[in-house]
């Protein structure tokens, strides 16, 4: 599980894109693809290898006017488990 101090970065083999056929944002990587919802896209767009997980959650929390820390941590930890997100 990633913590608030984790600095998530996208695996260098993965790329965020938009699939105009399915009309969904998508994370592409070798031999695979994850279709995203708008929340997932909003989180991943803030993952830049500099911001901490806490900072990402802070930005989104302000945007949605609610505490999203647990959701962001769970979402990114899940992708980290699949090696699509790296810590540091």
């Amino acid at each position: 599980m990633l913590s608030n101090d984790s600095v998530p970065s996208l695996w260098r083999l993965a790329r965020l894109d938009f699939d105009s056929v399915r009309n969904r944002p998508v994370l592409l990587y070798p031999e695979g693809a994850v279709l995203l919802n708008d929340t997932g896209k909003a989180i991943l767009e803030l993952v830049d290898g500099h911001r901490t997980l806490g900072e990402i959650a802070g930005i989104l929390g302000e945007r949605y006017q609610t505490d999203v820390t647990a959701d962001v941590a769970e979402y990114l930890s899940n992708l980290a488990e699949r090696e699509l997100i790296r810590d540091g």
Partner: protein
Amino acid sequence: MTANLPTTLLAELTHRCPLHCPYCSNPLDMIRAERELSTDDWKRVFTQARALGVLQLGLSGGEPMIRKDLEELAAHARGLGLYSTLVTSGLGFTRARAERLREAGLEHVQISIQDADPEIAERIAGVSSVKQKLAAAAIVRELGFAFSVNVVLHRANLDRIGAIIDMAAELGADRIELANTQYYGWALENRAALMPTREQLDRAQAAAQDAMRRYRGRMQILFVLPDYFEQYPKPCYGGWGKLYIVVAPDGKALPCHGATQITTLAFDNVRDHSLEWIWQNSDAFQAFRGDDWMREPCRSCPRKTVDFGGCRCQAFALTGAAENTDPVCTLSPDRGMIDAAIAAPADSLEYRYRVIAEPQRA
């Protein structure tokens, strides 16, 4: 049966290849250069594939570097937003061409390694190749491509799996695919010489799992067990005609790269039809969608939604009927032929090497 949206296109650009690996899954009856699709044909197919929902493109073969138009095809694919993987032996992957491919927007290069022991590697490939592969790997790293090493495992190299993984890490690979031989095409022809022992596999699996812990976060390691040694068959790319399209060098569209061996099916060609028409309507893609085609024991089996009865190509090649249960399944009445093949590895490692046959004289 309504079709899904496909996610992956494997473009077998050519069957020509400088290597002669006896485990190759290409058919024995390979397609000669003059029957290959043109540049415009392939570009049209890529465009149609993207419109149909395809996200992943494999530029494969044979050896795709043999195609002079590879850079143009890679650029076209990138323009469509496809994530492209070049599946290469590394031979012909020169710096000049690699730079042009990088410029074209190619993202991911996968280089095959036959073994960590150079002498055995070249015996398997049937040709001097190690030096070129190492040079290619260095160029891949230097130019910043996403980099995978892929290794087909069999009796002659399984015992060095640890050294092979370490070698991939030293080459700077982001990931390594360790795939035990699947017996299609040339591999089925060489099955007795390629067949590992159960003990070899157990040791290799333990070594791979140990390496996964050691390299976690640095290099992704994928280890695929051979279906012959498992209880149930593999789900063929999520089921027949569900996610995956292969286009052979001559333009035949296939639901699986081994499908041409099912001689009872006719495959439509991208020269005659759009990929969308083929995906939605062709007899070959419809043939094994859903489960109406299934026979027992699959028909009443709760696992039919898990593995879809296994591989149709393997069922046909080994039992003579593509509707039969994949014989690797322990519930199949034909499982005995798999156990017999496991029990009878060849005494020697003599291979029948992959070569493209000369045309028959009239």
